[in-house]
């Protein structure tokens, strides 16, 4: 029964550590059952912060990772924690803010927009949780040569959904991945103010945890998942995911591409 | 009228069982009313109602002549009444704090509280226990604390529910003496429940006998014990000989009664032919040996045989067979002098006025 330890042989279980965004958009709810049907593996999707996902990989507590923090991923790979890092897909980030746009950034290039927000001391909510999105945001500030600090720079320390909601309530600016923004858009008064900047692209990779770390790692399952998610059929599903619900796709498949 | 506490048409019912039903009962200012009655007859319940602690199902309780209805009235009345419960329920605090509790409720100054509490602890012989947690007291010590807790309040009315039941005889004696002085001196009005006849006789101005939730008789101690109004009261008050008889002759208040063929003289107005019960307290019966010269004024002399001698404290209850059973009470001295043994022939002597006659 479900209360007994690990249904089935442990070799059938694959632990997928991923970020909340993939789960919250519902993409994994589509992909995982497919994978399970196809391969007979049972996937345990653990949706956590990117930092935690990578830490789980580092400790060998997960078999496969689906994450989006290129810089950290590279460090992770360099340290030998993972093998076979492969691009899966990307989506993009958007800079959203109140419709009134008090800092007047609508349509500006990203770096300029960030500069105006900082100089106007308009409230900006940062996720502050070391997630992929947070890392991206920090990178963007750095590129804009601004060290954000002060009362206007709010450190929410939460996931994307909560950060958006806080921004909405505070009528503040924030950076969000498009998927989460679209998913929550209906309840929010925030508008997309800056988008489609090359710097705002958000790349997801799949990484198999290095099986040399521990005998308990199910590398076969990890490899199967990795293969599955970059397979053409899956990539096709990703391409069209969200079409129906949001009128636009949430992700762009990337498999096989170099970036 | 100078009644301090009064109930009218009182009824206490739980579900279908009637716990107390009292059409009228009152307590005069300065009076001591003793309440007796078998277990479960409603004494404690009545006291709770009189203490404004329990709302009766029906009826009104008057305090100082005014009906007490509102919660505020109730509090004011309660502040003039102190009650000692049958089981001493002390709070989890020191003995001192327990005894001080009522005074504290009344917001008396600390120094007064200390003086008064200590005075009463002293009086009840538990001053040395003042700082002890109340939970460590022995049964009798707890009852003393419970008494002190009520008496320290100097209430207008004192309701005592078997307040001496766990006390040792020495302190009980002292306390009863003491209490009697206080009650009389301070004109305290008191109702107290007791199972001890001698307490009731000694302290009560009037005695109420309860049975089955009803008050069977309220009267002076002499009347209740000497002239019980019913067989039930008679039995309860310790009349051990109750003989069914029929009036044969009536001579200006002195009647000749036939009891199983024997003739007894009794003081009663009942007319010939009436069927009556003769109540004879064992204390009224004296015994004479067969050779003893008749002394005293006893009009009834019944020869009989000693059936049983039952020790009762320092005295004896002697059961005689005189054709029917008669119980007599003799002191050890008398028994020794007469050298009384079971099977001995003796004569029971008692006055016509020693018999109380109630109609059957």
């Amino acid at each position, binding site marked *: 029964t*479900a*209360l*007994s*330890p*690990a*249904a089935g042989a*442990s070799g059938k*279980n694959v*632990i997928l550590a991923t970020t*909340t965004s993939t*789960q*919250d*958009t*519902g993409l994994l*709810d589509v992909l*995982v059952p497919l994978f399970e049907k196809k391969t007979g593996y*049972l*996937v*345990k*999707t*653990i*949706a956590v912060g990117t930092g935690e996902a990578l830490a789980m990989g580092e*400790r*060998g*507590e997960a078999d496969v990772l689906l994450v989006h923090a290129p810089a950290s991923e590279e460090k992770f790979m360099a340290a030998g924690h993972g093998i076979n890092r492969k691009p899966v897909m990307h989506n993009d980030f958007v800079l959203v803010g109140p419709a009134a746009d008090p800092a007047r950034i609508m349509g500006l290039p990203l770096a300029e927009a960030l500069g105006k927000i900082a100089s106007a001391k308009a409230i900006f909510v940062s996720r502050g949780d070391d997630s992929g999105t947070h890392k991206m945001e920090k990178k963007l500030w750095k590129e804009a040569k601004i060290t954000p600090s002060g009362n206007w720079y709010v450190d929410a320390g939460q*996931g994307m*959904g*909560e950060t958006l909601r806080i921004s909405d309530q505070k009528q503040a600016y924030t950076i969000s991945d498009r998927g989460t923004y679209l*998913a*929550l858009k*209906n*309840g929010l008064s925030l508008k997309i103010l800056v988008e489609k900047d090359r710097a705002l692209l958000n790349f997801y990779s799949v990484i198999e945890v290095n099986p040399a770390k*521990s005998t*308990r*790692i199910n590398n076969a399952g990890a490899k199967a998942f990795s293969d599955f998610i970059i397979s053409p059929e899956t990539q096709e599903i990703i391409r069209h995911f969200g079409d129906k619900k949001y009128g636009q796709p949430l992700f762009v498949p990337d498999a096989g591409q170099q970036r | 009228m100078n009644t301090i506490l009064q109930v009218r048409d009182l009824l206490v019912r739980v579900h279908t069982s009637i716990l107390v039903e009292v059409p009228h009962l009152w307590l005069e200012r300065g009076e001591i009313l003793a309440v007796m009655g078998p277990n479960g007859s409603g004494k404690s319940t009545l006291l709770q109602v009189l203490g404004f602690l329990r709302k009766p199902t029906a009826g009104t309780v008057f305090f100082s002549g005014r009906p007490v209805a509102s919660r505020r009235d109730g509090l004011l009345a309660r502040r003039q009444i102190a009650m000692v419960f049958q089981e001493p329920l002390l709070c989890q605090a020191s003995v001192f704090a327990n005894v001080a509790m009522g005074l504290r409720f009344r917001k008396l100054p600390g120094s007064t509280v200390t003086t008064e509490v200590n005075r009463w602890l002293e009086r009840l012989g538990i001053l040395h226990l003042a700082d002890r947690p109340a*939970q460590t007291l022995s049964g009798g010590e707890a009852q003393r604390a419970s008494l002190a807790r009520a008496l320290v309040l100097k209430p207008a009315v004192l309701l005592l529910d078997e307040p001496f039941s766990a006390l040792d005889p020495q302190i009980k004696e002292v306390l009863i003496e003491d209490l009697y002085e206080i009650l009389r001196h301070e004109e305290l009005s008191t109702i107290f429940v007791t199972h001890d006849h001698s307490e009731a006789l000694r302290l009560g101005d009037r005695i109420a006998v309860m049975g089955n939730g009803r008050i069977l008789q309220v009267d002076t101690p002499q009347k209740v014990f000497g002239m019980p109004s019913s067989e039930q009261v008679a039995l309860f008050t310790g009349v051990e000989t109750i003989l069914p008889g029929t009036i044969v002759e009536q001579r200006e208040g002195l009647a000749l009664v036939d009891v199983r063929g024997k003739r007894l003289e009794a003081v009663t107005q009942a007319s010939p032919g009436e069927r009556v019960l003769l109540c004879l307290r064992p204390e009224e019966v004296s015994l004479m040996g067969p050779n003893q010269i008749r002394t005293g004024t006893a009009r009834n002399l019944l020869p009989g045989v000693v059936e049983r001698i039952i020790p009762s404290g320092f005295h004896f209850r002697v059961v005689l067979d005189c054709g029917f059973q008669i119980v007599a009470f003799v002191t050890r001295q008398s028994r020794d002098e007469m050298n009384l043994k079971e099977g001995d022939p003796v004569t029971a002597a008692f006055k016509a006025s020693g018999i109380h006659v109630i109609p059957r």
Partner: protein
Amino acid sequence: MDLILQGAKHALELLIQGDPEIFQVVLLSLRVSGTAVLISLLLGIPLGTILALSEFPGRRLVLSLVNTGMGFPPVVVGLFVSMLLWRSGPLGGLDLLYTPAAMVIAQVALAAPIIIGLTAAAIQQLNPKLRLQILSLGANRRQLMWILLREARLPLLAAVMAGFGGVISEVGAVMMVGGNVKGQTRVLTTATVLETRMGHFDVAIALSLVLLGITFLVNLALTIFQQRGGTR
């Protein structure tokens, strides 16, 4: 507030349609929390009773520790249990992480101190002479404990309800050790969080209402049992 109405409507729909997924989630919630409370009772009631009745140096300290346990942060418990069950942890070999069993373990860690602490207080509150009275009737230790527990029925059942309420409504720990895996370890609270995160407030509210409804029914039954026979 319209969201709540929508949620209520949705909740009704879910229940009436007998959505098998929701049914499974509800069942798992009940099974996990029920098992956890049961285990906590089996552990907690004897321990609480012993703590209440025995006198030993350091008793206060132990009681404080237990009472501190009532304030175990679920995420901390989740973290610790995770660490235990991690592949690299001491119990990694059991492969329990992300299974209902792991959730039960975490919930026991949360509920047991509540049960122990409240049981100890309930038993201590009883008249100590009652214990002697029962022993004098020839009770052995088991019989004594049983009667004492019956005497403290009121606060004990309140303890059970507090414990059950605490774990069935808890999300931090079960999320961590259960992982909210669909079809395996998703319970009402983790589902609620997920739906909230996905912005499906109406579904979240519907799930919450279902959870509240279940808790209410369980507590109604327990309260009726508790209050049987009125105020003593």
